[in-house]
Structure formats: structure tokens, C-alpha cells
């Protein structure tokens, strides 16, 4: 199981839980698992999220590995200039 930390306004969609647990070994499993376990998160996930894994930020790469001890934080999908 991986612990996923949500940002505040996402937590409001899952009964105020700031952290949720999900079975995932990579980014793809994480994003799919979240949407299935918590349908309320689906609209935001389909609009796009970034995921910080051990302090580095990922957007798309499905195969990015996630360990049980990894720090996983969901972020709004980032843009730059």
C-alpha cells in the first residue's frame, strides 16, 4: 500500500481525508486506482494532476516506480512560462 497525500480542497471531496491509501507500484496504477477507489477525485484527475514522488514532480510517465515507503503527494497539474 502507498500513502497518498491530497491537497486541502481535494481532501474535501473524500470526507476530509488528507491521506488515502492505495495499492500501486507505479504512477499508472496510482492514478487509475485513485479514480476507481474515490470517484469524487475523477474530475480533477482527468483535468490533470502532477504527482510528487519523493520530492520530484511527475506528470505522465506511467512506469515511474513507487515504493511502499515513497512519499507520494498529489498536486495541481503544473504549468510554466
Amino acid at each position: 500500500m502507498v500513502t497518498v497525500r491530497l491537497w486541502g480542497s481535494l481532501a474535501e471531496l473524500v470526507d476530509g481525508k488528507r491521506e488515502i491509501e492505495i495499492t500501486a507500484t507505479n504512477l499508472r496504477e496510482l492514478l487509475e486506482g485513485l479514480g476507481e477507489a474515490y470517484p469524487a477525485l475523477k474530475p480533477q484527475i482527468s483535468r490533470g494532476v502532477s504527482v510528487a514522488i519523493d520530492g520530484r514532480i511527475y506528470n505522465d510517465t506511467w512506469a515511474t516506480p513507487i515504493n511502499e515507503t515513497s512519499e507520494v503527494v498529489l498536486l495541481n497539474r503544473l504549468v510554466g512560462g
Partner: protein
Amino acid sequence: MPKDEFTPRTFSVVGTRPLRPDGIDKVTGRARYGADISAPGMLTGMVLRSPHAHARICSIDTSVAAAMPGVKAVITRADFPVHPENNGTADVLDNCMADKKALYDGHAVAAVAASSRRAALDALATIKVVYEVLPHVLDVDEAMKLDAPILHKGRKQEGVPADVSDNVLTRTEYGHGDPEIGFQMADLVIERQFKTAATHQGYIEPHSCLATLGSDGQGDLWVCTQGHYMARNTCAEILGLDSGCLRVTPSEIGGGFGGKTTVFLEPTALLLSQKSGRPVKMTMTREEVFRASGPTASTSIDIKIGMTKDGTITAAKGDYRYQNGAYEAMNGTLGAMTGFAPYDLDHVKTVGWDVVTNRPKAAAYRAPGAPMAAFAVESVIDELAYKLGLDPIEVRLKNAAREGTKSAYGPTYPAIGLEATLKAAKSHPHWSAPLGENQGRGVACGFWFNFGGDTCVSLMVNPDGTVSLSEGNPDIGGSRAAMSMMAAEELGIPMERVRTIIADTAALGQNEVTDGSRVTFAVGLATIKAARHAIQIMVERAAMTWGIDPEAVEWVDGAAQPAGPNAGKHPPMSLAEIAAIASNTGGPISGHFEVNAEGAGVSFGTHIADTEVDPETGAVKIIRYTVFQDAGKAVHPSFVEGQLQGGAVQGIGWALNEEYIYGKDGTLQNAGFLDYRIPVASDLPMIDTAILEIPNPGHPYGVRGVGETGIVPPLAAVANSVSRAAGVRMTSLPMSPPKVLAALKKM
């Protein structure tokens, strides 16, 4: 776990300051920018724009224009063939050509293509648009009220409360701990509201493109853009084309700063070309650039911070309300994520609001959303330090985020360079230099994420031993030079032997836009990997020539050589030697690398600003300015300095005089360089820089993006400096002379 790419090494090319390969073209006027190219039979395309801030478009009559001599095509929104499914693309189309409503002064409503500029202008003048003028709203706090004029219905996202208007599209909350507990532990709590005006990226080259599109859907587009793949994909989606049929070639780009990360004219130009059967060139006037392209958000921000007598921040709260113009954007979200990012906080809560108003659609502007947030946060920290009698750098050092700090936006930081920039600032002579009468010194920190994204590089080894490198990101500040340097470093040959070009969309795979300070990091990474790929092939060719196993060959100083005593004795084969016999050893040699380069390292900077305030007029003069920033590894230090200097000066302009000024009717009053006051040479001193190099573990050479962070601290650094010089806290940008004088008079 993501694997570390960085290995410490010594460099022979990286870190030097060679001349840029595109330099001679640019100093002789030969370089071709967006508007510098023509095509046989070319028409001029021009746009008719709404004079109203908010109006229903009742009807558009183009019949007179269409019948005029020289007019070859006239289009309105009704001529666009598809409605994109993707909300973001639908917004882009709506911004390119208004549908049922004009949402801001300058919103495009029709376009013509004609045989001359004069004919196009005359035709535009005959187009009759019947508008029903609607009430408009420009200010973010006004737009959030329930009784505000509403731009779009039904776009509120989940999480936006019912007690704000439909103009509020998103509300985002970040943070951890409980600030209310933290404020109890503070010796001093300061809460203030801040305002910042909308500013424009201010690139000197107006948007321009030359489009050809046939009735068969085959097209070519020449355009000044930060992302030609983005331009291709967006235009294809908007026009219902196969993206493979549309080839986009980027021109030299005359500045972007985020403002050229979307399309404005391109779909219109393509459609006009298709309708007229002729190439169509469109170039915005400067007035159009200001009225209809790229400003960033204006903001209203509440910050509350508690501090103990020894300078420890006990709690921090921020409410960031940003208006993004007429369509969805996420500047407020990014403000809420970045404002407190430099600090190690136990109790922090930030809320970001993204709101629409009757202003042009906000485009990204260098670290979008972050400079305004830093202005507000760093101002309160400065005021706390001042009132508690503490050194403002010491206070920041005491609270600085470092490796292992849980950031205000969530993740725990890996190795970062904030502390190093603060220490460098503290020990720099600037910090201890004496100040004169009416002068003040301000310091501020800034943070930006930096990105990677889709990237392709191809590296061709030519028969004469030179190397051609193709990358897919427009070169906005010297990236061709940086790529040639990194390829040369890796291959072990002189930089002059590597020529880098920007390939068109048909010549290389998908590349993310030149944004997010990503190019030197991500394209650099792909360049190094492509060079390694070519080296692997060259090693195999040498091994074949020598009749030994490729594992027994290594690449040293630009040549293959036997590795270890068992490989046998062979003189090294240079790159040129291997290239010369490529036809004999299997054929041409090239390396390539395609990647979605994720995991870019975050970036921090600290700026010191000295200003002098004229107590009788409120005029502010920048006396001295120094930038300290972590570059990971500066590939070309002059170009890194240039990024830091340019970012600082854009921030100085934002702090002092730049602003979008609207009349009561919602029309823009200063759509030109005369009254949109970007800094001129005589406004400024030299901008000193100190580049720190704390390697980015995610890049083979330790490179970190540097382009954006430089604009984050200056708003606050200048405001803190002016506040100390004037003896009154400045909370509204720009700090134009009337505002400063009014503040002085209130004291």
C-alpha cells in the same frame, strides 16, 4: 525511486562562454523572425476586434467587405468547422475568435485576408457587428461577488463554495498543521492585504505567422512561438485537421516569457488561407498585442504570519485571489502553492482562487502566479523582521526550507539551494554597503518548480566528423549554443564542430513547449543521451574495425580506444576517423533520444535591491541590485547571467511602473509602449549576479532550469527596499510615483 542522473565530473566545454552560433545572423539583421518571411501570392490577414469589454454578438454582416476589391476571404466564428471537445482547446478557439459573446476589449470577432494592408483595413471598417453591451467586471474581488456580471455559466469546478459567483472557476487549498495553534505561539502576528496589477510579458516581437492551407488539409505554418508542436496540435484540433498534415516551422523568436505558449492568430490565418487559396500573413500591431494577448493575472492577496522574538515563523496563512482574464487559468493555484515554498513551516494554510473577468485571457508569464505571491509573503516577513529588530536575511535563514523540509505545497524537498543563496547574499559586499539619505535596502526570496516534459533530440555524425543536432524547442535565449556545448562535452569534440538547429514538426517527434525553464534541463538531458547513443554506435564500429568485442572499447576524449590490456593494442580512433569510414562499417551514424523528462529540480533565488525614494515626488530609483540563484550547473554562464538579469528587470518593471489601466467602460487605456511603461536603459543600474551551483540530481551534468525563478523575488525585494526607504509599507503594485507620494503623505 527515480534514479539519480548526476555524476560529478570535470568539464571542458560546459561552463565556458563561447560565442553563440546564431549570433552573426542576429547582429547583422539576417535572422528571420515571425514577420520577416514572405510567400508568392501572399495576402495580408487582419482582425476586427470588439470595442466592448463584455457584449453579446447579435449579428455580424460581412457582405460589403467580402465584395470589396482585393478582399479574398472574410471569416467569423461561424466559419470554424469544429467545436473542440477539450475545454482548454475550446477556450483557445473562443479566444482566437469570439462566439456568442465578446468577453474583453480587443476580443477578435472577424478577420479578413486581402491583397494589401490598406485593403484589409478598409474591409474591416465595413464589417457591421451589432453588439448588445453587457455589464462588465475587471477586478478580482468584484468578480467573486454573487451579484457580479457573469462571463460563463456552469464552469465552476467542484470545491468552489456557493457563496461566490460563477466567475470563480477553481478554489484550491494547500498546507499542513493548524495555523490557529501556530499564531498562539507567536510574539507578533501581522496580517495585510496586497494588490498587484496585471502586467504583460512585453516581448518586443509582436505575434506573427505565415499560413498556407489547401482544401486537402495539407498545410504549412511559419510562426513565432514558444512551441511549434503546441501550435500544430492546437491548430489541428481547432480546424479538424490531421496534425501530420500540418507542418509548423518556428521562426526565430523575439521574446516570449510565457506569452507565446498558446495560439492567437494561427488558426485564423490557416482558415483564411484555406478560404482564399493563398498564403496569408498575419502580424499583430503593438496595440493588438496589449489588448488581445498574454497579460498575467492581477491579484488581491491576504497574508497572515506569526513570528517569535527570535525570528521563528510559527504559522502562516495566505488567501490568493487571482483574476485570469476571460478564461480558465491557474495562476491563483500556483500562487497558493509557491508563496510559502521557501520556508520550513509547521503550520501553514493557503487558499488559491482562480477567477474570470472581462480582460484578455491570461497567458503564462515567467513563473506564472509566483511573483505576486512572493511579493505578499516576503513583504510580511520583512515587516515582521523590521518590527522585531531582526536581520531580514537571518530571519529567512532561520526558517529556510532545506533538504528534508516538508514544503508548504506538500512534498518533502530533496537537496535544494535556498540556504546557499541566502548565505551568499549575507556575505556579499552589497548587503553591508552603506546607504545614503532616502535610500533603503530590501531582500526577498523566490521559488519556482521548473519542468521537463516531452523531448526529442537527434544527433547526426556527418562524414567529415562534424555533428548536426536537431532539437524541437524554439531558441529563446541561447539554447542552441547550450545544446552544442553539451553534445560537444559528451562527444569530446570542440563545440564549433556541433551545429544545432531547431527542427520543424515533421522532422522530429513531439516536443513540449519552451516553457517551465525546461529546455537546458530536458533538451540538454536528451542531447547528452543522444550523444551517448551515437557514442555507443561509434564504439561498436571501432570494435568491428579492430575485430574486438565492443565491451572492450571505451570512449575517451573524443575517440574510441581499447579498454584495458586484454583488448589488444590499437591506436585510438577519433570521431572523425570513425565517421569517415561509416559507409564501410554499416552506414551513417546517428544517435537519438526521446523522453518525457520528468523530475526536474525546483529552484530558489534571493535578491537584494537598493532604492532611493524622492520624498517630494514619490519617484523611485533603483540604486543597486544583486541576484543570487542556484543554477545547478551553468552550461553557459553568460546566458545564465542574462536570464537572471532579465528576470530581475522584468520584476523591477512590475514593481514600479507596469500595469494594465482600464477606463470605466472596461477598455484598455494604455495599449502601447508609451504608457505601458517597461523599464528603459536609463532607469537601471548594472544588475549584478551570483550564480550558485548545487547540482540537480536529476540531470547528468546537474543542470537546473534558471529562466523563471529570477522574476519571483524582485517585486518583493523592491517593495521591501522602497518601504524601508520611505518609512511606510507599500502593499500595492505598481509602486508608481502617485502611489508612493500618497503613502508618504499619509504617514
